[in-house]
């Protein structure tokens, strides 16, 4: 499929990044995970922020669960 100019949202070394098509082609295979592909940078960045926020929320939730599970000392 031909889908024009694209912006790639990837995850590498546990960090999300938005890269251009040129940068994407230079990436070593198996060193990153492709998340989604957008036709403009703004949408790609917006999705990246949402993903980071989701990850933060998940970690916060896990921390809360562990804190609540800990026996309370008097």
């Amino acid at each position, binding site marked *: 499929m031909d889908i024009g100019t*694209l912006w790639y949202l990837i995850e590498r070394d546990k960090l999300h990044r938005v890269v251009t098509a040129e940068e994407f082609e230079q990436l070593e295979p198996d060193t990153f995970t492709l998340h989604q592909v957008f036709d403009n940078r703004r949408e790609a960045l917006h999705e990246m922020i949402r993903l980071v926020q989701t990850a933060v929320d998940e970690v916060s939730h896990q921390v809360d669960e562990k804190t609540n599970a800990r026996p309370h000392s008097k």
Partner: protein
Amino acid sequence: MTTGSSALQGVWVDVLMPLHPDLTLHHSKLITHIRTLAVKGIQGVVLFGPAGEGLSFSATERLQAVKQLTTHGVSGRDIVLHAGFSSVAETVEVIRQANALGLKGCIVRPPRSEDEPTQEGLAQFFNQVADLTRGISTHLYLASPYRAGAPDLKPYVVNEVVSKHPGAYAGILDQTRNASHMQDSLRLYSAQLPVYTNDELQAVVLGKLGLHTSVSSWANLIPSVMTTLVSPPSATKLSVAGNAIGTDDGPLLHLARMLMGLPEVPALKYLMSIHYHDADWLRVRPPLFELLPQSQENLLKDFKKHFPSGGKP
């Protein structure tokens, strides 16, 4: 990119439809999903098929989605649209508009009817559609229904339509996900028309026979796996020993077992919601309903076990 040929080659994804909270189609998420699939090597998309909850979308909604996609750079030559409606008029109107938008093809299936349709009636339906869309460049594909109980495409119907309108229909899509039915379709029709399947496991078998096409709902989730399995051997990577890499259909068997007994669209959409970290993908249109939490938990556990890298070959 596809060519002007009427043949379907490679993986054509029966696309799942992301929905807004009011269950209208989320166009921007659909476009992004299709772009992402394209980068992962698929050949094209089939819109509003079984995975795309086609029966719950009106003609207007389907055409609106196509317009959004073509406006945002997806070529019409990479789109096949399900244009199956119960009325000839609606079917023809959608096909004509799809043609005006430059779509590669439209899929036409037997119409739903309150009464038991006759073979003659079904043949007349497809003949009328062919008559009223004569001269268009969008290719038409006949399709069997995808659930037992609906009127099937029988040899009388196909022979009648193909003899009266040679060239009007460019292929047959067997949507039954039934191996014996597919074998019958191949035996009965492959001399007249190319036969395609939307069953991933059968598509891999057909690939070994030299037919490298799959209309796949699973490719929403595992596009790279499907592309590798369906591609001709020359396009696959070879190991040092000369064996094709990634052509083991074991992952598909695992996925088939995972989905067995579950409603497929809600199950695939649940896995998409995990894949994209986006709960919007959970939504389905009635009469479908989201997977129950226990089923979600079991499915996710199995998927992570068999696809630890999230669907890479």
